[in-house]
């Protein structure tokens, strides 16, 4: 297993986690840390990196689908998350998901398929080859990160469930458990979070079910134990902590689409030519590049146009944003 690390740190340079959490707590109580501040990150690119941590996953294979771009640091990837189940601030999930227990875990499969049922996490993942897929994640908020996911192609799972000819779409649901997911105690989105793909999108070789990050088990704040990753779509399509997979003839409505239909569409393909009603999608801010780095042009389908554009022939991408 070969995983690129953005920078190497000697152990003595790393602040012990308990020390650094205590320091934060003290500063917070003194009112010194404002909402946007988090320990140990300089304006001049990724100065400090706290990770990686968590159980090491064995037998990971490299993938031809990986990008060779410089990956973001563990700290960037695990402290800047949109995961409203654990709070709406970017750093909320890294704080509020600490006690989340992603085991035991099972996924209910139902709808238009020949092998419905409830599958244990272990039954779904064990015996399958884990691949490292380094993808750039482009958020609808016009920032991006390069993330070394570990996972299995969604297509191999879908095949196992044997969808029938009526299965035109796949609908996913996140766990709904306000006791374990404190963000769900507020109704900003209509819980549980739901997302959907066409069956063709679900079967595409780029579409991944991620169970790991940086060669480790997926951290809670990144969607443990299993989440979707669709690299040519805006990040909100990549639903986290999946508990249900439903094959359906009817197009599902995704949670963000339901909340603000004129801003977030079902397809949500990365598209520099179609602006969000409140901001441009032409360029993106690469996370981890420091304050003096300029934005980068956003690529059609996040750079995967050659592989996925054919899925959308004849579809007006301005209307079906």
């Amino acid at each position, binding site marked *: 297993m070969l995983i690129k690390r953005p920078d190497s740190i000697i152990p003595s340079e790393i*602040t012990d986690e308990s020390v*650094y959490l205590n*320091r*934060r707590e003290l*500063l917070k109580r003194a009112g*010194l*840390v*404002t*909402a*946007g*501040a*988090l*320990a*140990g*990150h*300089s*304006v001049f690119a990724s*100065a*400090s990196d706290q990770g990686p941590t968590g159980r090491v996953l064995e037998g990971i294979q490299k993938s031809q689908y990986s990008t060779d771009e410089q990956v*973001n640091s563990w*700290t*960037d990837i695990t*402290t*800047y998350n949109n995961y*409203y189940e654990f709070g*709406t601030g*970017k*750093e909320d999930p890294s704080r509020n998901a600490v006690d989340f227990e992603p085991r035991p875990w099972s996924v209910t499969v139902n709808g238009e398929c020949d092998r419905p049922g409830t599958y244990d996490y272990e039954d779904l993942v064990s015996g399958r080859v884990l691949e490292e897929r380094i993808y750039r994640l482009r958020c609808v*908020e016009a*920032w991006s990160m390069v993330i070394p996911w570990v996972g299995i192609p969604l297509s191999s799972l879908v095949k196992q469930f044997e969808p029938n000819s009526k299965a035109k779409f796949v609908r996913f649901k996140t766990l709904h458990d306000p006791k374990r997911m404190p963000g769900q105690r507020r109704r*900003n*989105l209509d819980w549980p979070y739901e997302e959907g793909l066409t069956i063709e999108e679900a079967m595409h070789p780029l579409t991944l079910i991620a169970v790991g990050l940086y060669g480790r088990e997926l951290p809670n704040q990144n969607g443990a134990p299993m989440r979707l990753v669709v690299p040519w779509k805006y990040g909100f399509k990549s639903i986290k902590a999946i508990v249900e997979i439903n094959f359906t003839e009817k197009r599902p409505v995704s949670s963000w689409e339901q*909340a*603000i239909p004129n801003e977030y569409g079902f397809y949500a393909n990365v598209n520099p030519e179609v*602006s969000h009603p*409140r*901001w*441009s999608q032409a360029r993106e*801010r690469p*996370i*981890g590049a*420091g*304050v*003096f780095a*300029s*934005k980068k042009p956003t690529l059609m389908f996040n750079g995967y146009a050659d592989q996925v554009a054919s899925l959308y022939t004849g579809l007006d991408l301005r209307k079906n944003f």
Partner: protein
Amino acid sequence: MKPGSKSFFRLTKPVVFLVCLLPLVILTASAFSVAGLGLGANPIEALLHEFGRWGLKFLLLSLAITPLRRWTGWNWLIRFRRMLGLFAFFYILLHFVVYAVLDQGLDIAVIIEDVLKRPYITLGMAALLMLVPLAVTSTKGMMRRLGKRWQKLHRLVYVIAILGVWHFYWQVKLDTLDATVYALILAGLLGTRVYFARMSRRSG
């Protein structure tokens, strides 16, 4: 030392000034990772949002002086209002500088497009431009020169505060709780003015 006396102001004014500078000091320290502080994975966004929020906080603080003075009878509070107003302008200006220089890389075409095409940026820019004449006319000399017109001009601050909070509210993706708190505080501060105006009309 009596509140309102010369020695009182000589001591408290520099202290208040330094306290008002604290957000800038802490954000600068965070930007350079001093003392374990930091700005998180997206430092530009953090600076942008923090300067904007502090600008609004100082704007609301400056608007709180008059109602506070009426309720408490502490007339000396008025002597701090100009400083709070100027700090509001200062932080809002920094908010704009972070946006224009760090976020948009001084790309004038992109900035113009933003101001024209994105209503929440239009509002924010309008508020910033309206703040400029208020800052320029904040000196004692200007107050004297403008006389009654000074007060009329400075009533613009009500419009600016409404536009500023609206700008904040409008750019939020979904969770409007924070922006709602700002809006409620502003509504309260403006509401007391309406109340006081009515009371004085009734008694007068």
